[in-house]
């Protein structure tokens, strides 16, 4: 991350801006410094010039004063001998009434004396000069000559900086204009009033000014340097702040971009796009995924509600339009499935959902919605539907087949009942007729044999009846009602006991939960179980038959127990099969269908049947009946 930031830095506009600002600030600082430095030199020079001007003005004033007096008489000394250049001037030398000698010092002479003997506080040196000096000392040097020439051309002041003995000096020169008083001494040279007589010059050492200026410059440099540094620091600080802001903005932008691309990815994966319809301007905007679902180039799409309608399956347009318009008017949810017709004829299914926002005036303003491509799902559902239909058809077919088979079975049962009973009746009847009509001619063995024929036909008749009974138990309609198992068991027991008066039979009935079922069928169950119990307790001197049970949450449990011959548990599975017998017909007669009928009836009631027993230790047949009525017709 940090590396990224560093790598990114040179490209940052903040950095570029900061660099530009620093450069600009440096330029401004440098410019300002040089401006002030130059200004400082000029100022020093200006002050020096002013100083020089004052000096010159003083000299001029002094000379003017001297001129106005026509010069000054002083005692002649070595320093002030009579001026030889004034020999033509009358009264150059006079004697006072007291005999004191005096000589005339003309203004130029006085000024030169002053200039020679006194210099200013800044080392100024004054000098007078002329192109035509009386005193050769006053003859001009080169610079003075050119300045004097410029005065003659009208200049009022000439100044220059020049080196004098290796040090900088300011030289300023002003012209002397011929006045009336001047003519006293210089009239002889032909001057007229107003002529440029010569110049008064001053040379001012610039050292002290430059020294002062140098201090100012140092301050300026230091101040500017400090300002520059402060400026750079400020720029750096601002840049840092901006950079931080920029990074934050970039991070926020990245987050938005990531979240946008995440959303787009999610839409692509889910085949779910979102849209917004501005109902005021009728502008429809789709996410990229909707364009993909509709397979429309965004450039080709009109982006209006009408364009949307035009893009869907022609047969669904009216429906979609109505659904959406209704949802707007009634403010009901818009959640529909419609089709799309692709250019190549493919059909797609999409689920449209939206919510609409309403203005304060109650008019719809905009709808926000989603478009979900559910083609795959629809296809899967259709497949499931098709499979289900196929399955249903197959079931129907099978049911028809089963019903047909059942009908055939019924027809077979009917045939058995009718067609087999008639021959049996004939066998029984005619063997009996034989005995009746030919009694005298038949010996006992012949009669016994005929008896065997009749016994077997009777047994076969019983088998047939049992098969029919078994089949009838499967087909009969059940009538559900409350059943008192105990009472029913006693009634059945009493009937059966009447058929076996020679036996000693005892029945105990426990506290039994009430049952629900078909009374006649349950009676059949109890009859079969109790008659079995009576049959298999045959060898016992006293038959003990117990009917018991206990209630349960879902189903009640009942059992019929006896102290008979029992059975081997390894054959328990055969107990409930049709025609399955665990005992020989000789030992216990029977068709072997009684328990099969019991099983069939109990299972039709939604209950279960099982048995337990041990050889010579009795048998217990258990069954359950659901507490809530449940018809299991599938057990048919």
């Amino acid at each position, binding site marked *: 991350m940090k590396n990224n930031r560093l790598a990114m830095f040179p490209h940052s506009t903040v950095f570029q801006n900061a660099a530009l600002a620093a450069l600009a600030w440096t330029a401004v600082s440098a410019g300002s410094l040089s401006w002030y430095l130059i200004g400082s030199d000029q100022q020093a020079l200006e002050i020096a010039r002013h100083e020089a001007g004052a000096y010159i003005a003083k000299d001029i004033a002094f000379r003017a004063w001297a001129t106005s007096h026509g010069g000054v008489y002083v005692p002649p000394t070595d320093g002030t001998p009579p001026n030889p250049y004034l020999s033509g001037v009358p009264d150059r030398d006079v004697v006072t009434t007291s005999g004191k000698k005096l000589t005339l010092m003309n203004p130029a002479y006085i000024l030169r004396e002053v200039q020679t003997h006194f210099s200013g506080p800044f080392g100024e040196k004054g000098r007078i000069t002329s192109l035509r000096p009386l005193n050769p000392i006053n003859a001009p040097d080169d610079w003075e000559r050119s300045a004097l020439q410029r005065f003659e051309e009208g200049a009022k002041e000439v100044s220059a900086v020049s080196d004098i003995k290796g040090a900088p000096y300011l030289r300023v020169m002003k012209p002397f204009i011929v006045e009336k008083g001047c003519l006293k001494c210089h009239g002889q040279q032909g001057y007229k009033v107003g002529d440029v007589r010569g110049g008064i010059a001053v040379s001012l050492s610039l050292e002290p000014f430059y020294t002062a200026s140098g201090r100012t410059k140092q301050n300026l440099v230091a101040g500017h340097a400090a300002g520059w540094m402060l400026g750079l620091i400020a720029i750096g600080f601002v840049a840092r702040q901006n950079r931080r802001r920029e990074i934050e903005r970039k991070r926020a932008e990245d987050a938005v971009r990531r979240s946008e691309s995440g959303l787009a990815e999610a839409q692509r994966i889910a085949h779910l796009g979102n849209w917004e319809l501005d109902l005021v301007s009728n502008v429809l905007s789709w996410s990229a995924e909707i364009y993909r679902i509709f397979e429309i180039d965004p450039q080709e799409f009109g982006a209006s509600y009408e364009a949307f309608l035009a893009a869907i399956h022609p047969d669904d347009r009216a429906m979609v339009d109505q659904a959406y318009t209704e949802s707007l008017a009634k403010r009901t949810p818009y959640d529909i499935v419609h089709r799309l017709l692709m250019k190549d004829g493919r059909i797609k299914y999409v689920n449209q959902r939206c919510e609409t926002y309403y203005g304060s005036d109650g008019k719809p303003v905009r709808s926000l919605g989603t478009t979900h491509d559910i083609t795959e799902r629809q296809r899967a559902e259709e497949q499931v539907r098709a499979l289900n239909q196929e399955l249903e058809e197959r079931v129907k077919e099978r049911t028809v087949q089963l019903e047909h088979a059942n009908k055939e079975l019924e027809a077979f049962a*009917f045939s058995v*009942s*009718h*067609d087999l*009973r*008639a*021959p*049996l*009746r*004939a066998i*029984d*009847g*005619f*063997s*009996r*007729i034989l005995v009746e009509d030919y009694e005298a001619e038949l010996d006992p063995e012949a009669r016994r044999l005929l008896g065997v024929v*009749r016994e077997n*036909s*009777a047994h076969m*008749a019983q088998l047939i*009846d049992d098969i*029919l009974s078994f089949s*009838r138990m499967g087909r009969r309609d059940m009538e559900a009602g409350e059943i008192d198992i105990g009472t029913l068991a006693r009634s059945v027991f009493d009937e059966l006991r009447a058929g076996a008066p020679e036996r000693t039979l005892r029945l105990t009935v426990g506290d039994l939960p009430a049952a629900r079922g078909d009374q006649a069928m349950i009676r059949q169950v109890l009859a079969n179980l109790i008659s079995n119990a009576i049959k298999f307790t045959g060898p016992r001197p006293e038959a003990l038959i117990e009917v018991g049970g206990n209630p349960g949450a879902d189903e009640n449990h009942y059992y019929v127990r006896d102290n008979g011959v029992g059975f081997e548990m390894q054959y328990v599975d055969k107990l409930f099969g049709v025609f399955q017998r665990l005992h020989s017909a000789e030992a216990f007669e029977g068709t072997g269908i009684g328990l099969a009928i019991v099983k069939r009836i109990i299972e039709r009631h939604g209950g279960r049947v099982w048995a337990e027993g041990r050889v010579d230790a009795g048998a217990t047949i258990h069954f359950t009946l659901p507490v809530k009525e449940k018809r299991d017709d599938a057990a048919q």
Partner: protein
Amino acid sequence: MTQPNEAVEILLVEDTPTDAELTIRALKKRSLVNNLVWVKDGAEALDFLFASGAYAGRDSAHQPKVVLLDLRLPRVSGIEVLRRIKADERTRSIPVVVLTSSKEDVDVEECYRLGVNSYITKPVSFDAFIEAVGELGLYWLLLNKAPRE
């Protein structure tokens, strides 16, 4: 067995010869077979009752006192014969006793719906059969009072 000039008392409609013989024997035991006509299918039974076909010359005014009708018959079924008997003004009052091996509930219900007078399931046991047929013969021939006469 039939005497053309005597009034027929019993019409036995039975396709199984052994059953017919046993039935006749049972009736004979009770001396009830003076005038018994035995036909072997439904069509013949209808011809007899409506004096058509082979029985075209029969006097249909003299109808049997009882019809013993088996249900499973060749050509025209017992149920159809019953329907025709009970649907016709001339034969409606003749008592019809259905004798059948079938214990099918559907048949019983259908027979009673059509107006059968009795429905007997033929027992397989000879003794029981003799008993049952004898009883019904007694009832319908001797005890039952027909509307006509």
